[in-house]
């Protein structure tokens, strides 16, 4: 019990509402016509003033998408998706022509982000939170980037941080070289859809030898009804550089399912390190009926291209009706390292099938997987992971731990690891456990005055501690609160 801090208890006790991010911003929006066709793809490309080569890439992906089957191997029960019943482009009217300066942004939007705890005015950030180091934010609202903060300050360090739309215009050589190099359009149907209709997202380039002077982050918000969000993130860490990047996501409560199909690609060159953290809190759907909620189909993959490079994924997944997500590392450079730290919580009628792939190609490559799954309500939570050691990966090492916790007897917890080794000198260790929340722990906490729900939140935070402590400070507090909120209603 000593590990549980008073601070955590206070935070958990302070919780009231259920899905706090469930409000809608009333703002005039420009949308593409409903449905998906070549014309829509052209519409999006035209809206973004894209060069011809980009449009060609999109159309090629769209044609491929038409032919591809839905991935069916995950342990998910998904109603057939009507791709024509969704909008593929929605942007606040005054931003339809691309991001301007912060002063041109509709106050309703700024207010939205403030309500979510993400101030976008730099001077406010600097004035308001002296004790914290400022974080640079790219705020994506439905299909467009609303604002990117601290761009100038970052530019001084040589760091490029902008929306992907801007990168296509301003840095075509980098985008051409790297976009699709880690996740090709044909990787899977969801990635292929993204490659055809992606609307915005973030682009990061850290030049050789630069340690990014501040945390970078993107905050994704879906607002419009029946609108899908298809963002695309590309991060390139050049030789010897370092960057820590965070991502957060929320959406209003709606009765309809909404589609979110994203791609994140990371490239780490020699001696570079990328730390990528996610706190995913999309609307999970109605607690009782499961109605509505986001379909979160995300393809995240990084390549450790260079020697001694490192990519570390940390995720706290609490939202979405359906989560289908496997942040992965291709360990190509010798001595490169991949890490995956995950907490996935499902409650109500949520379904999650999430995990990672570690593909060892280079010599002496190392990977580490720590996964903590918590199932409550009538939800199902699956860890699915692959560790593959290629024949040339001399001396490769993998260590995997996946623990599952069940709260109540109406939910399911599943573990599906694939462990494949073709190298004699490689060593792989995998451990997994499944158990229920300890009654003695619950009793102990309740004897000290906590309600059952508070006690559960506390214990679950302890269970997930190994992962939580990988999060940057600012996010860790947020994430701990979220654990409590997402487990509400799990007992009783």
């Amino acid at each position, binding site marked *: 019990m000593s590990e549980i801090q008073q601070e955590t208890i206070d935070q958990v006790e302070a919780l009231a509402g259920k899905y706090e991010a469930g409000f809608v911003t009333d703002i005039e929006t420009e949308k593409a016509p409903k449905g998906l066709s070549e014309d829509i793809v052209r519409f999006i490309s035209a809206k973004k003033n894209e060069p011809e080569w980009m449009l060609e890439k999109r159309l090629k992906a769209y044609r491929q998408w038409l032919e591809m089957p839905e991935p069916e191997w995950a342990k998910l029960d998904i109603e057939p998706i009507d791709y024509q019943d969704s909008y593929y482009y929605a942007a606040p009217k005054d931003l339809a022509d691309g991001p301007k300066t912060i002063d041109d942004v509709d106050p309703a939007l700024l207010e939205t982000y403030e309500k979510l705890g993400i101030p976008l005015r730099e001077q406010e950030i600097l004035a308001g939170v002296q004790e914290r180091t400022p974080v640079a934010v790219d705020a994506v609202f439905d299909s467009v980037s609303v604002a990117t903060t601290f761009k100038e300050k970052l530019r001084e360090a040589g760091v490029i941080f902008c929306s992907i739309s801007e990168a296509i215009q301003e840095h075509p050589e980098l985008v051409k070289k790297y976009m699709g190099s880690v996740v090709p359009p044909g990787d899977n149907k969801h990635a292929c859809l993204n490659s055809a209709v992606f609307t915005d997202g973030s682009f990061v380039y850290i030049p050789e030898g630069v340690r990014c002077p501040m945390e970078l982050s993107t905050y994704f918000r879906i607002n419009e009804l029946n609108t899908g969000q298809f963002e695309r993130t590309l991060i390139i860490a050049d030789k010897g550089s370092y960057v820590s990047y965070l991502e957060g996501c929320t959406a209003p409560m709606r009765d309809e399912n909404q589609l979110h199909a994203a791609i994140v690609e990371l490239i780490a060159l020699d001696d570079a390190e990328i730390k990528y953290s996610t706190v995913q809190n999309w609307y999970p759907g109605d607690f009782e009926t499961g109605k509505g909620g986001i379909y979160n189909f995300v393809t995240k993959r990084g390549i450790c291209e260079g020697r001694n490079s490192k990519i570390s994924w940390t995720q706290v997944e609490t939202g979405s009706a359906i989560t289908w997500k496997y942040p992965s590392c291709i360990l190509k450079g010798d001595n490169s390292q991949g890490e995956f730290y995950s907490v996935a919580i499902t409650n109500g009628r949520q379904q999650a099938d999430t995990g990672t792939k570690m593909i060892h190609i280079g010599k002496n490559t190392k990977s580490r997987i720590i996964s903590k799954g918590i199932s409550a309500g009538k939800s199902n939570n699956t860890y699915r992971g692959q560790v593959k050691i290629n024949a040339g990966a001399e001396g490769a090492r993998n260590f995997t731990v996946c623990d*599952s916790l069940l709260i109540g007897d109406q*939910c399911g917890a599943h573990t*599906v690891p694939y*462990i494949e*080794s073709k190298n004699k000198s490689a060593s792989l260790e*995998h451990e*997994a456990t499944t*158990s229920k929340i300890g009654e003695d722990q619950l009793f102990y906490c309740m004897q000290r005055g906590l309600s059952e729900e508070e006690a559960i939140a506390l214990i679950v935070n302890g269970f997930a501690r190994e992962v939580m402590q990988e999060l940057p400070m600012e996010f860790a507090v947020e994430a701990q609160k979220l654990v409590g909120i997402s487990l509400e209603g799990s007992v009783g």
Partner: protein
Amino acid sequence: MPEALQINNLPTPKVEEWKFTNLPRALPANLVLADAPQEVVIHKTSGQIGKKPEEIVFTAGDNEHTQPHLKITIEENAELTVIERQSGEGAYWKNMISEITIGQNAKLHHIRINQDSDDAVQTNLVHITAARDAVYNGFSLNMGGKLTRHEIHAEIQGQGAEVSFNGVNLLSGSQHGDTTILIEHQAPNCVSNQFYRTLLNDKAHGVFQGKVHVHQIAQKTDGYQLSNALLLSPDAEMDTKPELEIYADDVKCSHGATTGQLDEEPLFYLRQRGLSEAQARFLLVQAFVDEVVDKVESESIQEEILEITNKWLETALKA
């Protein structure tokens, strides 16, 4: 009720459960298809305790397609040890099903020694049901055949039952050995154990897939699963998929899987005590195998198995 594989409808690696095993490619080209299954029945009636082990041998000849159907029924309070031996000559396909029913408080020790010929293919689908307080203690030594698939489905239907699956796979040349186990916990307070160790030499390919499925009703289940593999050659390959699917909250389930080489620490300890590196390796690999063989209850059978495994180890570790 299990059904044997049909020649005209063979699974391919596209089927998730057959992901790592390509059966159609391994089958002999000139098979003479069998007309009918050969049935072997072993039956112990209520309360009967078998004093001596029942031994059964399944053999086959070149180009043969045999369809053995083994039925073992142990009625309540009965007990028996069955030793199943697999052998043969030439290229053949032994397409077997085993149906095992263990009654209330009954006990079966099932030892399977597979020494099929080098060119043989064996598919063996085992279906086990265990009633209340029943015990199944299985041990499988797999070292024969070009390709074997030992697939076990166990249904634990009564409270207090305990099933164990232990096995040693010793594969060399271009042998392919696949063990796939599915345990269905359909009743509370039951225990299941899986403990497999695999040694791979030359270009051998080992597969271990084990799944523990705990149904919602099966509270207080204990399910353990452990697969350890040692790769003795640079061209060997091991694929492991240990799976848990759990719908009851008051359970203790865990699995562990390791693939790799011997640990350096014990090797050094033994060498400090004067053993040569080769000697130390041999001793440790032998211990790796012995720990599973130790799960066989009868000492005389243990000895027989160790004699076979030691011979294999001597050849495999000579280089």
